[in-house]
């Protein structure tokens, strides 16, 4: 299994008591899996995603990515793992406004020392997303759907084994939403494990499995 999460728990202090945003969650994801997690606002699905990505340290439990225990790594090693193995698509577009579309896609390649030139791969990804003609544009000139595609292309530049997406279709019209979910399906079929957090029920039919998050607990559909 590519991703193995066991007894994941994350607690926060609220006023006078603790509450568990994520409560004893177990999750396994393999190659070509495309999972969607749905749940109401405040159910803990984004916190779960952040734990899996290593942005948050769990209070209990472990996350193993390709056999590596995320919480055991120091910041540099964890960042390297995130850069090479995880493609993360944040909520909103997360596209950097100061950089062109092309530079946004290439950027993750340069965050750690690597040989080579990602220009050709970036060009290929942009063509696959259908936005190659926008390579020299700035994000302010793009539509919501186009920005989401930039985000996806950027997440794939380093050929990650796991793609995480937090509400990737929010603020998109139905056609754009459908196009983005189709892209995720294609990515999963190509071998990358995909985990999408969403509150839109229409997205579920693309997933190979549907999970529900409620009050910090995860259950299968």
């Amino acid at each position, binding site marked *: 299994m590519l991703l193995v999460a066991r007894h994941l728990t994350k607690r926060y202090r609220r006023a006078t008591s603790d509450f568990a945003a994520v409560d004893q969650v177990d999750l396994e994801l393999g190659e070509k899996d495309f999972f969607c997690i749905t749940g109401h606002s405040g159910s803990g699905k984004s916190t779960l995603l*952040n734990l899996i990505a290593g*942005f948050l340290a769990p209070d209990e439990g472990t996350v193993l990515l390709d056999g590596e225990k995320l919480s055991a790594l120091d910041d540099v090693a964890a960042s390297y793992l995130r850069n090479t193995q995880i493609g993360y698509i944040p909520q909103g577009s997360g596209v950097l406004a100061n950089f062109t579309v092309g530079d946004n896609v290439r950027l993750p390649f*340069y965050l750690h020392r690597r040989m080579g030139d990602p220009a050709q791969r970036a060009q290929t990804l942009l063509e696959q997303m259908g936005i190659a003609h926008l390579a020299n544009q700035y994000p302010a000139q793009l539509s919501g759907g186009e920005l989401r595609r930039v985000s996806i292309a950027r997440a794939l530049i380093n050929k990650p084994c796991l793609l995480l997406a937090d509400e990737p279709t929010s603020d998109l019209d139905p056609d754009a939403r459908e196009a983005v979910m189709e892209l995720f399906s294609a990515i999963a079929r190509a071998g990358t494990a995909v985990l999408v957090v969403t509150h839109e029920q229409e997205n579920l039919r693309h997933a190979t499995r549907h999970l529900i998050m409620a009050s910090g607990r995860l259950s299968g559909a």
Partner: protein
Amino acid sequence: MLPAGRLTLFRIAIINILRRPARSLCLAGVVALLAFVLIGGSLLANSLSNGAANMADRLGADALIVPAGYEYDVEGALLRGEPSSFYLSGDLVYRLMQLAGIKQASPQLFIATFASSHCSFPVQMIGYDPQTDFVIVPWLSQSLPAGLPDGEVVVGSSIKGMVGDTLMFFGRDYPVVGKLEATGTGFDTSVFVNMTTARVALGDYVKLGGLMNVPSDDANAVSSITVQIEPGYDRATFTRSVRAGFRDEGVGVVLTQRLIGSVSSGLDVLLGIIVVLISFLWILSIGVLALLFTLSLGERRREFAVFRALGAARHQIALLVLIESALISLGGALVGTALVSLVYLSFSPLIGISIEMPYLQPAAPVIALLLVVGLLASSVTGPLAALFTALKTGRQATASLFKAGE
């Protein structure tokens, strides 16, 4: 086709700076202002110190005996280049030079030229006695080892006229045989002649209607007597003896130590003010920049969260912030340094005239050193101000940087 070029942290920093010109210019502007004041203040302080030191060197004498009531005028002539004419009768001169406590004494003759039009300025002509002088001769002997012949002049650095030119004073032509280096004192706007030449010029001055204070029928009148007091002889005693012995004959004494002292104390106060102002401005700049960086980086929390999400380590985020602050700081410091070089050096002569204190611009290597030190000191202000915020931004957990999406 995509543009080439590795996206190093340095290049990312430059892109961030260039894409936010208003923010970058604002931050750089603060540093530019700091550099301007820091370097400008240093140049001013150095010029004033130079002038005061030079003045102490040039004065040479321990005391100047002048007509009573003209102590301020001789100060003006020596320090501020304000030409004036005043005279002691020849008979007084002989008796004064016999006073106890005098090791060396030498007469000088001051004549202020006329201002011929609204555009010209009177110049101080100073006649000295080549046989007894000990103030001007050592200085002139550097450029005129054989001495200054009759009918010829040596000009101060601010006088129009080069060696070989001819200047006219009181209707008579005088060839220029020497031009002195700048001293930052009234000597820069003076012309020097020997006593014989000076007496001829005085005669011409009177013939042309110059009646200011000239004693009639006195071929031996002088303006002042420069005095070197015997080592160990008390200056206060000397001053008292002059005043007591010549009480009703209109004689005054200026101790050059007091002159230098008053200039020094005035200078100390001014330098103190400059140092306090510069220090205050530096601290204020660091504070303002720290505030601006904190506000600006606060707005960019999501941007840094994205960098972290893409796999940037904490130290890379901190380094990115520091590189940005260093580049902005350096840019601002360069602009401020260039600006102060242009403005200060262009207006230095006017500053020297307006400030009414001995003022001598430092030599080129000193100016260069002050510019470099000022540039470096200003350049580090940005990274210093951003350091705390940079480290804090790097440390913040990525999840807390993203807006909660739950």
